[in-house]
């Protein structure tokens, strides 16, 4: 069961989603997304571009944020819009905690809508992928 509009209030947190990517998951993502840039699976290549190690794909973190929102709203709700900025790097084998807070609750064109601020958090507390979503709820 997903979130109901009547039960949502501004300022409330949505349930967290914790991720921790293995290098295997990054390879799986490369296949699923079609992004085969070597900085995400070839250590030597990544270091050659000046990175400290291979890094997690930004679009995978976008996918995590999509799951965060989907798991919260369920299949009676719909994502109208969502996006994020890739501000900081995340490394494999480190926690990536996806979080969200409701920022606005309103009705528009007969639809019950909610805006949420969403982000991924690295172990040191950096918000590496800040974003937002607008969802329609039952």
């Amino acid at each position, binding site marked *: 069961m997903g979130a109901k509009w009547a039960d949502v209030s501004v300022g409330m947190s949505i349930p967290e989603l914790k991720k921790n990517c293995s290098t295997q998951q990054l390879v799986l993502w490369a296949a699923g997304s079609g992004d085969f840039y070597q900085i995400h699976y070839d250590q030597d290549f990544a270091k050659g571009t000046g990175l400290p190690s291979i890094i997690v794909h930004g679009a995978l973190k976008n*996918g995590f944020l999509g799951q965060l929102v989907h798991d919260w709203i369920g299949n009676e709700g*719909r994502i109208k819009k*969502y*996006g*994020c*900025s890739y501000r900081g790097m995340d490394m494999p084998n480190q926690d990536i905690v996806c979080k969200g807070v409701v920022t606005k609750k309103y009705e528009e064109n007969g639809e019950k809508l909610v805006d949420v601020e969403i982000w991924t958090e690295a172990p040191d507390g950096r918000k590496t992928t800040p974003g937002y979503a607008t969802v329609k709820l039952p």
Partner: protein
Amino acid sequence: MAEAEKTPLITPEMKAQIGVEGHPTTLEVDKTMIRLFARAVGHTDQVYYDEAAAKAAGYRSLPCPPGYLGTPIFNPAGGGRRGPAEMGPGPQPSRPLRRVLNGGTEIEYFDDICAGDVLTATSHLANLEETAGSLGEMLITTNKTVYKRDGKVVAISTGTGIRY
């Protein structure tokens, strides 16, 4: 640095590309790719894996997980692997920039997109900006892609690329 600032990175040829629509790309949405994408993210909702669960939840077939907008048809004989944005390098900045970062993504949805759908995507360069930041001089490129199914817009994605 002061001298370098006199010559913009963005050339008139680059500016002329703003708003010019690229060639349409066909994207297929199929069950296998939806399952692979959902598995790569780590989705646990059965609607992304089990067609009966998807239909019970009101979808026509497996729905696209957030962030997935179909897969361009790969053909080694020609065409881009990832769609129109990568079909060609296009006009280049006045000074070479070696590195690329994905700056951000936004997707706006207008309908469910499900397995079996065939989408036509058309991209255009929406904006160019140059700034100087911690990474040195940066070129920020915004691309928009409009996804249609049977002529109806089902999603619009906006991607920001950073070159430095």
